[in-house]
């Protein structure tokens, strides 16, 4: 059994347009799903589940959202952490203060984030390029300010809300394994939904806008509508991610967790992982989650104890260096490296 396209004949367009047209891709996906749903929760330690897998999944979701906007539709956002914050706060308020059922609260957080994202996407109607990128910074600062200064949001305590215990239909979600499944289910659902969006008409419209917006509009793609949908979908994903990470990992909504640097980190994730690919969002998020741990371990081999400033500086250098490295060497990120490997195998055994 080899990964290849040779010898795989597709008899209908429907088959050619299937989500994974090549058999081994489907197999690979199956293996990944078994790994994620069965192997990891039963073998990984609680530390791995709650300190690595949970943030990895949540950031994957957020990065996926940003990738829709930046990687596919070509609109840079450097305020995406703020949309995560909106999701986090609003879902906690919905669930904790108004008793909305948990699944609805999480998606409700996404809806509120989506509304915020759409509002800040409106300038994209008139403002383009760097002017737009900078104005998304406005989202970051204005939302941060609102969340800390509006008493009603936090109930008055330094803009922080504690996450209450989670119940779904009276069933408590407290152990790392239960949380892991909650996050994984939402992630799987939204990833399939998102993958379908980007391989269909909406995704094509987005890519068209990214590559050549004037031509796209003349051909019949409404810039305003499609850009706004991009902002809405993108910040919905960010909001759900913010909600999930707060419920399961941070355990309290705190604006400090969603500062500007998270926005940069999300951007870094999609650059390193691969802009304009779903898979790249996962690569990037996984990489960025593991990077600090990896750096810490490396430093520990050369010194007894790692002071926090040395760790922070090393992270900044490696992170910045990698962004530059990938942009120069492989602008489509790790996902493209993976793709190249696959392409090589695809034509096997006749690479001509």
């Amino acid at each position: 059994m080899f990964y290849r396209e040779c010898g795989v004949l597709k008899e209908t367009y429907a088959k050619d347009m299937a989500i994974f047209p090549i058999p081994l891709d489907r197999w690979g996906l199956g293996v990944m799903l078994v790994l994620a749903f069965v192997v990891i929760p039963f073998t990984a330690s609680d530390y791995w589940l709650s300190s690595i897998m949970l943030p990895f999944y949540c950031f994957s979701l957020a990065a996926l959202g940003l990738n829709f906007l930046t990687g596919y539709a070509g609109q840079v956002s450097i305020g995406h952490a703020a949309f995560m914050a909106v999701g986090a706060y609003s879902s906690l308020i919905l669930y904790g203060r108004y008793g909305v059922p948990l699944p609805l609260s999480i998606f409700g957080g996404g809806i509120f984030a989506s509304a915020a994202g759409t509002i800040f996407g409106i300038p994209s109607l008139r403002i383009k390029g760097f002017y737009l990128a900078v104005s998304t910074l406005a989202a970051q600062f204005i939302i941060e300010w609102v969340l800390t200064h509006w008493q009603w949001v936090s109930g008055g305590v330094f803009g922080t809300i504690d996450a209450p215990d989670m119940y779904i239909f009276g069933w408590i979600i407290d152990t790392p394994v239960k949380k892991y499944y909650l996050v994984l289910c939402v992630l799987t659902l939204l990833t399939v939904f998102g993958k379908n969006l980007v391989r269909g008409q909406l995704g094509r419209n987005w890519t068209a806008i990214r590559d050549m917006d004037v031509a796209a509009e003349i051909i019949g793609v409404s810039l305003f509508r499609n850009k706004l949908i991009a902002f809405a979908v993108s910040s919905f994903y960010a909001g759900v991610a913010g909600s999930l990470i707060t419920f399961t990992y941070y355990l309290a909504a705190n604006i400090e967790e969603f500062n500007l640097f998270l926005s940069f980190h999300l951007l870094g994730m999609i650059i390193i992982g691969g802009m304009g690919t779903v898979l790249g969002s996962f690569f990037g998020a996984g990489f960025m989650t593991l990077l600090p741990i990896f750096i810490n371990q490396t430093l520990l081999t050369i010194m007894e104890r790692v002071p926090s400033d040395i760790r922070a500086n090393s992270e900044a250098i490696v992170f910045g260096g990698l962004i530059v490295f990938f942009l120069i060497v492989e602008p489509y990120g790790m996902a493209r490296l993976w793709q190249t490997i696959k392409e090589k195998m695809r034509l096997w055994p006749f690479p001509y």
Partner: protein
Amino acid sequence: MTFFFEVLISGLLVGVMYSLVAMGFALIYKASGVFNFAQGDMSLLAGLALVGFLTVMPLWLALLCTFAVMTILAYGTVFIIFRPLVARPPLILFMAAIGLSFLIQGIGQAIWGTDAKGLNIGIPEISFEISGIYLNTFDLTFGGVATALVAGLVWFFQKTRTGRALRAVADDHEAALSVGIPLLRAWAVTWVIAGIVATVAGVAWGSRLGVQFSLSLIALKALPVLILGGIDSILGAILAGLLIGASENLAEVFIGPYVGGGIQTFFPYLVALIVLWFKPYGMFGKEIIERV
């Protein structure tokens, strides 16, 4: 009314600093099309380097060494990072600048430490009063230095051979290449100039607030200034800097108390957004006519 003027003047003095940082952005953007997100980090680096050198040498030598550091940074950036990226889309260059920003932060702080450091280059801070308005010598000195720097740059770009060559590069890359101006060297010179601008801003802010990580955040204050003025306009950067410096200070003092304060962080962005809605390329930015 006196109070109003005091607030206005202190706002304008802050605005001069915004103008400086924004000008650094505009210079590099004009010359190389790079939206240099690392401009604030360059100020941080300059501040860190100067503090470091001052511990072992006199001021003039320390300034010279700082200048050397900024020059090395400029050439390194252009020839290592941006040479392979020539002709890539602006978005990619922008993201490279974000990467650069983390690199400078990390390396600068790895060499000179992350703790907040005082910076004193011996400019006295004496308050005095003119017709009821309080001013101080420190602010005025830096206001003067900044103004001189701007005037110097204008002279440099208008009158000197190098300056004119740089402007030619900014106007049309290919045409400049065809008359024999080496593109990358021109970029590097521009980055050196932006480095000098960053140094002045870094020293001014560092002397007031101490040299530490937060210094790099002045870039965030300069960004709305930049887009308000128009990213490729030096004049725009200067005027918008003053406008934003003054208006944010006035807003904080006169509106802030009613809404809970702290509006300085986003007020400039709000102003910029509103203006951009009506003038999408800022006050003086070059409008891009869509051609297909």
